[in-house]
């Protein structure tokens, strides 16, 4: 092929038709495919939610904790803080990229460092959020069909924790350990109370009502009458404290599954982003890119980091706001 033909043919090789390097293009392709993966997850969440639109848990009642404020009902504030942390670390990243364009090594080091700190704080916050979600707050009963029965005080309208009313019944039933019994049969720890204890406590307290998952016309959870509550508690088969992949005291178990899956997948992205940032940070410190003559690697990890921020914007909306 002669030189003139190469120059006139944009896609003939030896050119940069998209005005971006190979590495940057590959990062973009990865991001596009990863964006489709995340949209698959989020749309699956939407599907399950539309399927149970009249009984889905209310996020404001689930995520109510804020560090050092025990017992204070603070929905939204903590995730809002996490969102700001992530946006801010995105800004320091883009400043690092900009400093790289100007070949200012010191500034790149500083901004990369701040980005890593921001990412680490975010991952830590998410771990704390998970801890609260797994531990649970009030406890609930579960029926055979997997419906969740929660307890409210009819006088105040506030939720009541199981430990506030469940009466103790002496029972020899203890957690079965495979060290003292059939070795191949084991169980995870029993809930603090048995269904019988909760039922007896409920019968003894006249002002307690059961709250079911169904939403009423105003968008609140339906609270049953005393008679209906007494009838409903007979259907309970298990005590649920906290949430895991099988049981969820906050309501529909799919909610917990998607919460763990989507925020977990996102948290893993943030974690790997922090690791990649650290590697690039060390390279910057050693002067690898100074010698190479350009800081394009910083730009590439920057793209990934902004993408992680972008995904969080959507997770924030669909899990906490909508």
């Amino acid at each position, binding site marked *: 092929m002669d030189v003139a033909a190469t120059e006139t043919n944009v896609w003939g090789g030896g050119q940069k038709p998209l005005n971006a390097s190979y590495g940057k293009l590959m990062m973009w392709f990865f991001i596009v495919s990863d964006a489709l993966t995340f949209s698959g997850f989020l749309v699956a969440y939407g599907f399950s939610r539309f399927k149970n639109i009249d009984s889905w848990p209310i996020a404001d009642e689930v995520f109510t904790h804020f560090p050092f404020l025990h017992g204070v009902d603070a929905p939204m504030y903590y995730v809002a803080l996490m*969102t700001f942390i992530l946006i801010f670390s995105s800004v320091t990243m883009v400043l690092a990229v900009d400093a790289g364009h100007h070949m200012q090594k010191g500034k790149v080091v500083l901004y990369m460092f701040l980005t890593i700190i921001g990412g680490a704080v975010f991952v830590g916050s998410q771990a704390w959020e998970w801890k609260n979600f797994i531990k649970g707050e009030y406890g609930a009963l579960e029926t055979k069909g997997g419906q969740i029965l929660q307890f409210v005080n009819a006088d105040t309208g506030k939720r009541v924790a199981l430990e506030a009313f469940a009466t103790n019944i002496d029972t020899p039933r203890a957690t079965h350990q495979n060290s003292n019994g059939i070795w191949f049969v084991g169980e995870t720890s029993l809930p603090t109370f048995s269904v019988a204890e909760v039922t007896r406590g409920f019968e003894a307290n006249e002002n307690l009502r059961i709250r079911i998952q169904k939403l009423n016309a105003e968008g609140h959870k339906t609270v049953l009458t005393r008679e209906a509550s007494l009838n409903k508690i007979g259907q309970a088969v298990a005590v649920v404290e906290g949430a895991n992949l099988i049981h969820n005291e906050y309501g529909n178990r799919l909610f917990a599954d998607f919460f763990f899956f989507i925020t977990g997948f996102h948290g893993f992205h943030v974690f790997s982003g922090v690791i990649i940032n650290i590697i690039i940070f060390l390279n910057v410190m050693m002067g690898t890119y100074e010698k190479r003559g350009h800081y394009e690697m910083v730009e590439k990890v920057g793209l990934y980091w902004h993408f992680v921020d972008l995904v969080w914007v959507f997770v924030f909306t669909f899990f906490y706001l909508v």
Partner: protein
Amino acid sequence: MAQETHKLAIFRGLLKFKSNQQKIWGVLIFLSIVTTIEVVLGIVKPAPLNTMFLRMKLLNWIFIILTIVKAYYIAWDFMHIRDEKGSLKSAIVLPLLILIPYLVFILLVEGNYIFDVMRDGFVSWNF
């Protein structure tokens, strides 16, 4: 990658910045304002916005639109799509713009159908 290639105007040229760094801070302020509005609306939940619009609460529509606005500015200014060539821009954005709404449409309609079946059909979840 010369820094002179940055396009420094946002809001369709309404706001022009002197340098790329100034633009970054400007976009941060804008994103913070949008997030603050979202959080305030999420905590207050003003009653007039609870009216239904196109089968969804008006408030939820506002949240989704604000989210897309935020996503646009993160992609355009932080990920520098604004500075890329038109062909690369479309190669990135068009697949997402076509496939995601399609998936959303198809699965949400299906989810809604299953909800109707469980509500009106012969199976009921009352145990």
